[in-house]
């Protein structure tokens, strides 16, 4: 019997060891990328640097490779003034995640500066702090999401095409909407790789990276103000990884953001970073659409194979819009309320978040996983979605996001189709998970010649949406990398003079400066800034002619006292749109709508000359 026992034990050991060894060999097989922190020479200790400049404050975070025990933990930031390097700030390296956050107040943003981050071991990293492009007519934002590095779908293919294209368009700002790192355990190693891949364009322009679910180390994220999640898939709400891990991720990706407008921490001591960045007279609201959101598991009646998936097309959408379910949360809604009224040094407003405010896909997964609705999208909870869109349209904000792995353009509706903002969901850099926008019924009110999936629809939560474009991937496997999986990136051109927004959606590995280069079907599309709140049912108050250029105008509903919207006019004339049959107080001013210029104004009113000087 002893022989049997030892034979069993030996066989087990051999079995486990054998499979373990074969696993190590499998690391190299096609499909998954091996991720590690490389050892670098002392001169290369600084991997990359990210920065923003807002309200005359420069915030720059240098990302370092691990320092040795004897290495200094202090890093300097120098800028070149009259051919001399001048130190403007020092920072102590935070060892957990190896970041060095710099802050320079009273920054002169009217001119560009070369900068370098210096570590005394002999490492330097150089870049350019751009001047605030307030004199440019067009602010160009390059936008990305879903940075998978796995070879199975082309994640290992070089990002050089993206680097070259961003340089060609000389983007003013970069926006990474989320999932910069897919590895759920090695964010630091993944972040360093992200820096090696994109540092060349990041170092020279303001960059906004929003940590999304995979960055935080989980497949989906309903943050529930910092709760601890214990359910596989995390649909019970909260964070799966420990608070310290999440804090490290956020420190790496967001510590260079303008200061949070409401810095109170959430559960597990996790910070917040929702704020705004004013750059080139475009005011970007940086939203955390995951951090406060309620997890659906146990909160909503089960309607599908997962707590967050609804597969039953006959379910009652109202049944999942449960009391107490949060999307942006009160703190962010309060911020948006103030942000939408603030037009100081602002011509246009853009909201940035991880994902879009609707269910933006019907088929999820490899080929045909049709879902009626996905609560990971911001279509749920519907009341929270409506509150977010109501707040955003008050500032005529255009919305840009990612996460869906499927590029789309939607015009959102609340009470009626097309009465709220537009959104552009950008395609994945390399597409880990396929989705399709493929409604079963053709859309209503489609543009002539447009695909049947466009037009007015209800998403799976009965939210009103109007689709204008969807870069659906191919259905059958066809090479199955990058462009057959609709990989690519977005470009948003914000013309502050014409007040127009142009959305471009480019595949990978094309030269976008080549006149022959083609975007995904449905792009480019140009809209007016004012299309972000122009319900079809509205009338016009009457043409207002001001004595100053570009005043700020605000309409207040006299019955409710609620602000309908605030916007900076383009030029001296403006015909305010407004609901018919209601009276409004109109306020205006040079930079703030501080003076009442009209009372009891109604749609169909007569033209007026207005003095605001």
């Amino acid at each position: 019997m002893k022989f049997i026992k030892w034979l069993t034990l030996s066989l087990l050991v051999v079995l486990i060891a054998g499979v373990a060894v074969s696993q190590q060999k499998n690391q190299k097989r096609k499909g998954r990328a091996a991720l590690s922190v490389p050892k670098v020479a002392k001169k290369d200790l600084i991997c990359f640097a990210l920065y923003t400049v807002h309200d005359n404050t420069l915030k720059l975070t240098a990302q370092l490779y691990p320092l040795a025990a004897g290495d200094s933990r202090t890093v300097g930031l120098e800028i070149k003034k009259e051919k001399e390097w001048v130190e403007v700030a020092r920072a102590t390296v935070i060892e957990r995640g190896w970041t060095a956050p710099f802050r320079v107040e009273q920054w002169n943003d009217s001119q560009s500066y070369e900068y370098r981050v210096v570590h005394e071991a002999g490492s330097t990293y150089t870049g350019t702090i751009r001047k605030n492009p307030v004199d440019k007519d067009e602010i160009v934002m390059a936008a990305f999401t879903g940075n998978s590095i796995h070879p199975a779908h082309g994640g290992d293919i070089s990002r050089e095409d993206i680097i070259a294209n961003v340089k060609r368009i000389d983007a003013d700002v970069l926006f990474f909407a989320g999932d910069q790192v897919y590895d759920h355990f090695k964010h630091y190693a993944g972040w360093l790789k992200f820096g090696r891949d994109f540092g060349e364009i990041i170092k020279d322009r303001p960059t906004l990276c929003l940590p999304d679910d995979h960055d935080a180390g989980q497949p989906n994220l309903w943050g529930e103000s910092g709760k601890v999640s214990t359910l596989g898939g995390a649909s019970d709400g909260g964070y799966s990884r420990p608070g310290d891990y999440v804090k490290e991720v956020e420190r790496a990706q967001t510590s260079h953001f303008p200061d949070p407008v409401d810095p109170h921490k959430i559960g597990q001591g996790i910070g917040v970073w929702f704020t705004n960045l004013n750059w080139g007279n475009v005011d970007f609201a940086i939203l955390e659409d995951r951090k406060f959101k309620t997890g659906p598991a146990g909160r909503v009646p089960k309607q599908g194979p997962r707590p967050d998936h609804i597969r039953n097309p006959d379910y009652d959408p109202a049944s999942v819009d449960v009391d107490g379910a949060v999307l942006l949360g009160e703190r962010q809604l309060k911020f948006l309320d103030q942000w939408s009224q603030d037009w100081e040094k602002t011509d246009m407003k853009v909201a940035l978040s991880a994902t879009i405010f609707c269910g933006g896909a019907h088929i999820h997964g490899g080929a045909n996983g049709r879902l009626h609705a996905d609560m990971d999208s911001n279509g749920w909870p519907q009341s929270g979605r409506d509150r977010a869109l109501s707040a955003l349209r008050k500032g005529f904000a255009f919305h840009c996001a990612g996460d869906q792995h499927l590029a789309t353009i939607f015009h959102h509706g609340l009470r009626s189709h097309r009465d709220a903002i537009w959104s552009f969901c950008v395609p994945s850099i390399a597409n880990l998970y396929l989705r399709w926008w493929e409604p079963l019924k053709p859309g209503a009110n489609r543009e002539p010649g447009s695909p049947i999936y466009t037009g007015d629809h209800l998403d799976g939560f009965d939210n009103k949406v109007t689709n204008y474009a969807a870069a659906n991937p191919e259905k059958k496997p066809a090479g199955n990398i990058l462009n057959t999986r609709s990989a690519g990136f977005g470009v948003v051109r914000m013309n502050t003079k014409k007040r127009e927004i142009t959305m471009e959606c480019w595949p990978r590995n094309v030269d976008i400066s080549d006149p022959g280069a083609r975007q995904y079907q449905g792009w480019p599309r140009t809209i007016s800034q004012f299309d972000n709140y122009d319900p079809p049912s509205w009338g016009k108050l009457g043409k207002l002619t001001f004595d100053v250029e570009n005043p700020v105008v605000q309409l207040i509903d006299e019955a409710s006292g609620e602000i309908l919207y605030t916007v900076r006019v383009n030029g001296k004339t403006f015909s305010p749109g407004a609901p018919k049959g209601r009276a409004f107080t109109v306020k205006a001013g040079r930079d703030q709508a501080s003076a009442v210029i009209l009372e009891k104004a109604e749609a169909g009113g007569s033209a007026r000359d207005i003095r605001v000087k």
Partner: protein
Amino acid sequence: MKPLQADSLLVLLLRVGAFLCLAGWTWVHFYWEGPYGVLLWKDSSYALAERLGIDWEDFVGTGADDGLVQRWIGLTGWFYLAVTVLTVTVRQKSYIQMVGLLGGGLLLGVLAYAKFIGAQRQLPMLVEHGGQILAPVLLVLALRLGVRHSVTIIAAMIAMVTTFVGHGCYAMGLWPMPATFPAITTLILGVEHETAAAMLWWAGILDFLVCAGIFFKVSRRSCALYAAIWGLLTAVARPVAGMSFSLNYWGADQFVHEAVLRAPHFVIPLYLFLVWRRSDQIETVSVDSDIGTGPDAPQKVGPRKMTGSPI
């Protein structure tokens, strides 16, 4: 307790373990969904289907209806239900039902493989399902060969070792520890993450030690008892940490099956504890009987009367 009664109890224990495991997974298949998408939504799966003459739309559906993939995933739950029923109805000579139960082990093996692929081919994910895969197999062995038969006991030892080695690999951080391990620990014990991780590391060490310990007579009973208690605690920890009065059904539909389907994690070590307890006593009594003359003559309960040969 008389030996035949004890054996019946042991069979019942294995029956309960297999039943709970399969019932838990049946619940998952009907109420939620089996984890097979990762196996079927693959080009290679489609290539295989294509070689069998199945075209794309039949394989994945048209978008408006289901294809083979969805239909097969839906059908799997019925197989699980049938095998769950067999754990109750199977008897010593129910050969066809035994074949069905062995098929249940195969089903659990496929499921474990799907989870292994879904977990990015982390070996412990496959290994830790050994206890569950072997739960219906053990029931068959116990009925067919005897609850004390060496093959049955060795199979139970393999089941326990795989489960605990798999857990131990994760707990010690040899593979990235699932986030739920420390999260559950912090919530239940109210400790910081670092403390939870340290506790789990030691628990991982103990996982390996008990796996080794069951191969030594001096330690096998205590190791099996520890494993039964630890297996029970780790199984019930999921509903304990996750359920809340504020959730629909208190969150029972989300969490209870997570404990139920892990029944083999504590039932199999408990079976080993009991079977060794009995056989150790028997051996002790047998030795004593050489010099004893009492009315409860040990030879009546001697090993030769058992339905197998204890090891």
